[in-house]
């Protein structure tokens, strides 16, 4: 075991710092004769009051552009470079074959507003993917409009709102568990709801008795993640569904992380009415450093009319076509047809796996998660919150509360120290109901050797915490930069959000010094 790992460390200036006027030689356009003759007179026809005089974009050469962004990329940790067990994010391998599909001219050189007769291929892919997702979730219909999970949640919450409004009921409340992802309450709030939090019980699951007390005529529905963010399956799901449905509330399934149960159980069979999926998690499409993703929203038959456009249909006479949205639809939530290329990659992934392959992914992701947990369990300073005997699903959460008390080393320090060994940190301080939370999601695609190395490294870091805690506080030292000053980054006097602000600040500082 060593900390031989070193991330690239380029002393890379910003584009604005290497710019020279006229350095850019790239020709974006070619002027032919008749065009160049008239160029000047046509440009002169623009009213002077509209013409731009100043544009401060930097000019650099092509080699500098390529080098700049290539060097930066080398200072970016990724699944392609190493183990990325970021909980709740499902950082599995992103098959490179799927990327080839998303580079086909036939799929990328298509305008979204072309006549349907010219985009039959795009629609067929979405139609087929929809069928597969219905099979995986037990829903009857999906819309691909949402660009990400949170966007799907927003659509889902609007569906809950519309469902009750159509009955003449203006229900004000959505219930979310205290372990829910932040997007759940944020999405419900955007859709105009008040949020009531239901507490978790001492098993780390929804407190069903409390839920029963909270449920009433004013509650539009419940948003639930299952397995929940602790990694536990909410095994009283049947009771939960009955409680919500008994008041004609709706059950929303946050399917951002389906990686433990795809091919094993279906939200639709558990009684959920609405589901969103994150294709950029379970369905292997890459996260692109923050996006793009895709968060298709699916519903049971009785809610189909509320879905946002586009909905894709097929008939032998018409071929594939966009269905006219129902009058009760929540309306459009994004122009065009969602993050199409992300959907294409997810379809490619499902074609590679088939049903059995999907099931295997769930089984092995759960196996890997419990395997790592079995190794961590016995380590000093590690607490497994809630029933340690219950199997976890695709991810698990441990707490470093005891370690912090014993050594003064906190979860964030451990996370930073892991970087020094070439591992990405887990998700930390989430879910909020676990103190010093450390949330690990190994996924099914991580080789066992890496899982073992990770566990061994963590053991060593914990040992270091007990023997040389000051070392850990300095971590990381092997990355492209040392620990980042996030306080300064956020301070109102020093916050710098663009080169424009940076230069403005320097100027005003210099002027201040002159005075």
């Amino acid at each position: 075991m060593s900390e031989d790992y070193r991330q690239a460390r380029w002393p890379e200036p910003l584009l604005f710092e290497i710019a020279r006027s006229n350095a850019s030689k790239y020709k974006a356009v070619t002027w032919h004769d008749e065009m160049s003759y008239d160029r000047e007179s046509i440009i002169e026809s623009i009213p002077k009051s509209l013409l731009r005089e100043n544009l401060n974009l930097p000019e650099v050469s092509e080699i500098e552009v390529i080098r700049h962004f290539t060097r930066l990329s080398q200072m970016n940790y990724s699944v392609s470079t190493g183990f990325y067990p970021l909980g709740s994010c499902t950082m599995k391998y992103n098959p490179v074959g799927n990327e080839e599909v998303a580079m086909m001219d036939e799929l990328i050189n298509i305008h979204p507003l072309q006549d349907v007769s010219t985009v039959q291929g795009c629609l067929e892919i979405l139609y087929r993917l929809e069928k597969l997702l219905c099979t995986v979730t037990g829903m009857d219909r999906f819309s691909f409009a949402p660009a990400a999970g949170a966007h799907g949640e927003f659509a889902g919450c609007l569906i809950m709102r519309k469902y009750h409004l159509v009955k003449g009921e203006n229900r004000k409340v959505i219930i979310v568990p205290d372990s829910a992802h932040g997007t759940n309450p944020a999405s419900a709030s955007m859709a105009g709801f008040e949020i009531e939090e239901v507490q978790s019980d001492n098993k780390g699951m929804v407190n069903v008795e409390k839920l029963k007390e909270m449920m009433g005529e004013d509650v539009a529905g419940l948003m639930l993640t299952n397995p929940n963010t602790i990694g536990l399956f909410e095994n009283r799901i049947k009771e939960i569904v009955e409680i919500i449905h008994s008041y004609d509330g709706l059950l929303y399934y946050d399917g951002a992380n389906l990686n433990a149960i795809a091919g094993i159980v279906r939200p639709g069979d558990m009684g959920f009415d609405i589901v969103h999926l994150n294709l950029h998690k379970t369905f292997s499409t890459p996260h692109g450093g923050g996006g793009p993703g895709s968060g298709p929203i699916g519903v049971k038959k009785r809610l189909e009319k509320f879905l946002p456009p586009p909905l894709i249909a097929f008939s032998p006479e018409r071929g594939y076509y966009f269905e006219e949205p129902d009058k009760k639809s929540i309306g459009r939530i994004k122009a065009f047809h969602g993050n199409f290329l992300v959907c294409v990659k997810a379809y490619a992934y499902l074609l590679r796996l088939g049903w059995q392959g999907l099931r295997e992914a769930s089984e092995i992701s759960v196996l890997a998660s419990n395997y790592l947990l079995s190794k961590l369990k016995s380590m000093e300073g590690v607490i497994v919150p809630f029933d340690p005997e219950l199997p976890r699903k695709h991810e698990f959460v441990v707490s470093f509360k005891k370690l912090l008390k014993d050594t003064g080393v906190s979860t964030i320090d451990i996370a930073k120290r892991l970087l020094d060994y070439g591992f990405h940190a887990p998700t930390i301080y989430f879910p909020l109901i676990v103190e010093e939370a450390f949330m690990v999601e190994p996924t099914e695609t991580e080789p066992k050797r890496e899982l073992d190395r990770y566990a061994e490294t963590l053991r060593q870091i914990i040992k270091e915490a007990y023997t040389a805690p000051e070392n850990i506080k300095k971590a990381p030292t092997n990355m492209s930069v040392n620990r980042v000053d996030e306080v300064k980054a956020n301070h109102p006097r020093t916050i710098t959000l663009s080169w424009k602000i940076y230069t403005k600040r320097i100027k005003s500082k210099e002027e201040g010094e002159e005075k």
Partner: protein
Amino acid sequence: MSKSIKHNPFIPHTDEEIAEMMRSIGINSIDELFNDIPKEFIIKKEPDFEGPFSEKEMLERISNIAVKNLYYPRVQLHIGQGIYLRYVPAAVKEILRRSEYLTSYTPYQPEASQGMLTALFEYQSLMAELLGLEIVNSSMYDWSTALGEAGRMAIRLSGRKKIIIGKYVFKERLEVLNTYIEPMGGFIKEIGYTTEGELNVEELERNLHDSAALYVEYPNAVGFIMKNLDELAEIVHRKGAYLITGVEPTVLGLIKSPGEIGADIAVGEGQSLGLPLSFGGPSLGIFACKDDPKMLRNMPGRLIGMTEDVNGTSRCFAMVLQTREQHIKREKATSNICTNQALMAVGVATYLALLGRSGLRELAEYIFTLTNKAIEKFHKLDFVKIPFYGLPHYQEFVYSVKEMTADKVLKGLLEKGIIGGLNIASDYPELGEAIVTCFTEVHSLASVNNYISALKAVVRHE
């Protein structure tokens, strides 16, 4: 009981490794890990499904479906409305393919993710120059949702519910704005133009006192740039409302920026800065605002800031003001957005870096020149009407063919290998059988001439 992987090609474990893991946990079968799930829900029967296929088979299958599309350059393509046909430089493709960016998550650990953070800071900085506004977030989903969020932000800031819209905003974008503001009680009021192509200021003033914002686009969805663009901010601000502008960003190589005309918030679609059409997604929502503390606190989306390491020895970058975001503020967050379109922002940063000031200016001049040459050539056809003839147009314009429906014209053109534009007859009945068409830097005068020959043939029923 042992387990071996037979179908999933991406699981790396051997049978022995799986057995070892099971032993370490203390289970005899993987099913035991699912024992806590009520039996009645466990799927018993294998459903109908596609796959599994090898990589080669999968590529063949999808290719066979994809060829049913009619795609550029197999057709001459003339549709815009926010998504534009651009030449995508090899440099942009090269950077977008780099798996270090592609396969990373949101940069939660700044020390491990300086590459993405710096690239996004570059994006924010380049876009800030282009827009003339200091603060740009590191992306929204697309233009339409950026507009939705801008509407919500103006309603939050002003406490008023009405958003005034300068006419000719692309229909789908308007629908999205409505979906976003409706739960807050927000609503839209549309105002029009004078015959000189100025936004109707009288109508604007009548509506402003109880409005959160005025939203105008330039160029608008019918392609022209309103002449009194630079006079609106003062009028709007006098009544305590916000000015939001929507832009197709390449126009800013030539025309005054949102900042220069006094806009408070700017939104737009970044796809047109060097990204492929992709059937409309992924694209890139641009969102910017003035350097004003109150606006900044109310802004949706992720922001990257420049800082130093804790020793103060090297410059670095980190996500900032996360206290506005859903993972901290939950139901009180300024937006629910989490995953955004970060990679597209890196692509756009690459494009802007490659073109630079002179390249972007050149691009905008070319598009402006070609569009207006095309308008002149269309105007000379005695069977064509151009409703906004004489106004400055960029990239798109509207025409109709006398005594022929837009539908018929477009069908005729398609038979001749031209996707000629979008039928907007039912969206704007006052324009008649109108088609909005589009010319970008991918086109040339030869494309204009080819289009016109085809149009003549369609009119002559050839």
